[in-house]
């Protein structure tokens, strides 16, 4: 994802709260400290289909915002 971002594409990592610090560290390690990390509620495992759709609901507005900002 960092490589895509470096090439100027709209790229982000979707991440749940306990992994936020790991994500920030990794983005820094790979030279893209401003890589967007799109936060969704934890957990990701053991979800019903409806709950998975709920997680997508959290992510989609953030993805759209990212794409619009990139296009602007």
């Amino acid at each position, binding site marked *: 994802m960092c490589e895509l971002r470096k090439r100027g594409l709209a790229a982000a990592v979707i991440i749940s709260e*306990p*992994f936020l*610090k*790991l994500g920030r*560290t*990794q983005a820094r*390690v790979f030279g893209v400290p401003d890589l967007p990390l799109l936060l969704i509620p934890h957990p990701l495992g*053991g979800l019903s289909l409806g709950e998975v759709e709920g997680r997508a609901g959290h992510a989609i507005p953030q993805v759209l915002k990212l794409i619009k900002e990139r296009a602007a």
Partner: protein
Amino acid sequence: MTNLAGLLESTGASIECEDDFDAVNELVRSRGWSDGLPVVPPTAGRVEHMLAFCDRPWDEPVAKIAPRYGEATPLRLAANAVMAGCRPEYFPLLVAAVEAMCEERFNLYGVQATTHLCAPLVIVNGPVAKELDINSGHNAFGPGWRANATLGRALRLALVNIGGAIPALGDMSTFGAPSKYSYLAAENEAASPWEPLHVERGLPREASAVTVIGAECPHNVNDHESITAEGILTTIAGTLIAVGANDVYYHAQPLIVMGPEHARTVADGGFSKADAKRFLHEHAHLPMRRFSKENIERRLRVTWKERLGAAGLDAPVPMVQRPEDLLIAVIGGAGKHSAVIHTFGATQAVTRALKTRDGSLARSVADFRRD
């Protein structure tokens, strides 16, 4: 470069501290540079002494340790080896183990950062194991031996201090495991009826080697009654079966640690290592109905689509995909026990020979002596 004073001039290479054990340990604790236990203060003098058995430039990285991808230079590794209490003679093995676990197929990023409780296990083979008095017998995975305790600990400190495996930051393990303090043993080659692990994995017998495995803690296999190869292996296969093991979902390489007495019984039954692996592969499986409905639909039928996608609930789910994926090592002392060690799953074992800088096999750690 092997001029310590020069290397210590670079930014961040050294830190001033009161010359007092407690003060040093308070500093180390406050910076998060430890496993929680007190450390031996890594003074410049001790670090230089540790590098007596290093035949490489002290500032040239031997690997980058995930997830921080910090550069593991001999200088940094030596500081961690001092902190762990290692003898300088151990240092070449520390370098080899770090190189092995940083090979891509080991997937150190996954092993370090996963929520699973794995830790890199190091198995040492060859003449260096005896030379360094690495325990391969009673309590080989436990306390009581300096080489096992401190070499394993030095690796952990390197994983934390260079690799950034800090709990909840770079090490996301839900529980962790006691094996994350130290996890290193030698194979008991003298008590094994079979070829040693490093020979099976393609190295000459006279080589010394490390094999690293992204492993869970050992799970005991008690069998005091079986007197045949088939009997012992049936009990081991039964213990290998674990519905919640990561290994079910990967081309994984679980390790069977055979106690010397079990190994002898199996070998006396005419079983080579390969025969034992075939038997274990054939017998370590469960009907799919023993898994939860969700795991059947979401994992088994998806991961093993070709074999289980449309299979009935009585279809066997193997614990290991191919006989040759199993690893077998003979470790331990007297007693009718073996152990099953499951893995992180998304990792492959790596075996690396102990070699000097010019690429030749080391006959002794003395080959690394600087002077």
